């Protein structure tokens, strides 16, 4: 059973420290929700775990499968089993969903065996259709240009389709609920639930409690000032919904000043 272990992580953007000593362990099969007000470092954490070059790690380690992934490029991290569902998926005009996913799958296969000839087109079509059916997506979706002119809901579903196809062991979902109406949220959440049945460790980053009605977390963490300041079970999220972040802010700030 793999686990992702984040220890004492410090992250700078443009010389300013955003994440200040974060510790968290995510095991396969667990769903962790990270909540917190805007600007507290949630998305910074997500991008850093995936290896975005704009984020500078000044201290700490992130160990996965006995390797410090901070030393790896984004594509290496992906092939090792880490996935990021983007808050704002990027459009790639002229590249179809199918072509893109087949390229991504083949890159994985070649990383294991450099001689691999790639997945056959019929085999790939079958696999893609199966995953699209689970997410109740029109098969015509495969022929569209990736995220190009997609609605907010389509983009998020395309992210989950990628996750379903690439089968990561650790999935980071960055504000996957933002911009979704209730129906889209339900479909996306069902997709995540279908996938996270045992094999995937999920790090769910969210501003609102709403998505947690659909994806049940095992653990809820509150991030503030670049650190996890409160951890608990699913009831912590409900508590936050009733009382907001203020009580934690007070507790945290008092804790620091005292």
């Amino acid at each position, binding site marked *: 059973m793999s686990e992702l272990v984040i220890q004492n992580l410090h992250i700078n953007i443009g010389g300013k420290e955003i994440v200040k000593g974060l510790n968290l362990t995510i095991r396969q099969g667990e769903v962790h929700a990270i909540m917190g007000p805007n600007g507290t470092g949630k998305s910074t954490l997500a991008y850093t775990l*995936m*290896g*975005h*070059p704009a984020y500078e790690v000044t201290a700490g380690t992130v160990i996965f499968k006995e390797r410090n992934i901070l030393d790896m*490029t*984004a*594509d290496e*991290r*992906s*092939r090792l089993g880490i*996935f*990021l569902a*983007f808050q704002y*998926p*990027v*459009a*790639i*005009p*002229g*590249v179809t969903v199918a*072509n*893109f996913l087949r*390229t*991504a799958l083949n*890159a*994985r296969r070649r*990383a294991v065996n450099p001689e691999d000839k790639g997945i056959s087109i019929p085999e790939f079509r079958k696999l893609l259709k199966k995953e699209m059916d689970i997410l109740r997506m029109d098969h015509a979706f495969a022929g569209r*240009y990736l995220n190009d002119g997609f609605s907010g809901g389509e983009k998020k579903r395309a992210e989950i389709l*990628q996750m379903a196809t*690439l089968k990561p062991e650790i999935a980071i979902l960055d504000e996957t609920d933002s911009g979704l109406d209730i129906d889209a949220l339900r479909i996306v959440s069902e997709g995540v639930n279908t996938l996270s049945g045992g094999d995937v460790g999920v790090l769910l980053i969210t501003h609102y409690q709403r998505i947690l009605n659909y994806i049940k977390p095992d653990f809820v963490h509150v991030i503030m000032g670049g650190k996890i300041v409160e951890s608990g079970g699913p009831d912590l999220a409900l508590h936050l919904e009733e009382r907001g972040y203020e009580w934690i802010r007070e507790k945290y700030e008092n804790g620091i000043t005292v």
Partner: protein
Amino acid sequence: MTAMPQVVIRKKGSQGPIAQDFAFHLDGTNLSKTSEFVAAYRQNAWKVYESLSIPTTKEEAWRRTDLSNLNPGNFKLPEVDQYKSLDKIPEKLLQPLTGETHGGQVVLMAGGAKTILDPALTAQGVIFTDLSTAEKNHPDILKKVMGKVVQPSEGKFAALPAALAQNGVLLYVPRGVVVEQPVHSLLWGPGAGLAYLSHILVYLEEDAAVTYVHEAASPTQEGEQKLHAGLVELYVGPRAQLRWVELQSWGENVWNFSHERVKVAEDGNIDWVFGAVGSHVTKNFSDLELTGSGSSGRMSGFYFTDRDQHLDHDTQQNHLAPHTTSDLLFKGALLGKSRSVWQGMIYVAPGADKIDGFQANRNLVLSEGARADSIPGLEILADDVRCSHGATVGRIDQDQVFYLLSRGIPGIEAERLIVEGFFDPIMQRIPFEGVRQRFQNAIHNKMESYQG
């Protein structure tokens, strides 16, 4: 051909003092063996040629393409049968690009040519043959098109092949004949120091239709400079349809110059696909001239440069009659220290109302040292027109690269995928898998050698 309205064309000739020139001579036998008409055409072209000097950057059309490193004195014309002692044609260049088979194939070589044509097409009156055979057997048809579309006086590199072309093709499709199988010609140009001069002539009578694929190619590396100067004269008759696909795959040492134009009569249509990946320096003039009411043309250009290549494409869309439509899309990617120039003009003549003219040029600059110039232009002298143009020069978006990396796609492949996506709108315009595959291979090979 009936008299056409006067066209305003950017000046492509040269009047400066001759510093250095080619060492060619007008070959007497070239004139004695041909018809009076062709002999007179060549003699006139030779006079024009001699009166013009090699263009310099002082001329507007040549401002961005510098020929001062060209050594014109060294080039020699191929001798008869010289191809027999030069590099053989790679088999893949002879394969059909547009389906399973050809309706015909003309192979142009140093000092020789080979022609194959389906006897069924011959029986229908279709002519598809090399120029010297056409001079012998079809002088009347040559008369209809030779010098009628491009004038030798348009420039030094128009006059040169007009006077001396050894390699040429005539395609003629009679009235109402629809040729189902595409025809294919290849100009194969090995041999360092040689000058290949070509003249391609196409005449489609009314209601005729054909697809014609022409490729010019030579071995990749040969060191010494080589020259190609080409003329392409196309005439599309009333309601006729020409699909014209040309591929420029010259080797790294080739200085390539061409003047190409199509005249389209009423309700005729041309679908012009253009792919350029080769040569050291290219200056190409490609003009779409819509002379008949209701005529239309689409020009789709693909170019990909690397190393120190310099490709300069100059396009015109001339609307000389009302109810005409033109649509140009040229897309290019650049690597290394290469440079591309696209300069395009939509010209709408007085009275050419109810026309649609569209042009777009998009460039993707992949290396720090590469540069793309994109210069669109409109000259509209009619009142009721719809014209639009767009030109962009951009770089790969790093957010796109990171997104693909995050899916496990390595950096080189991520960039290649983005480049392929960039070219997709051009691929969508090409109905031939073989041609699309060629362009895909070009993308693949150029990206690969760049990264390696």
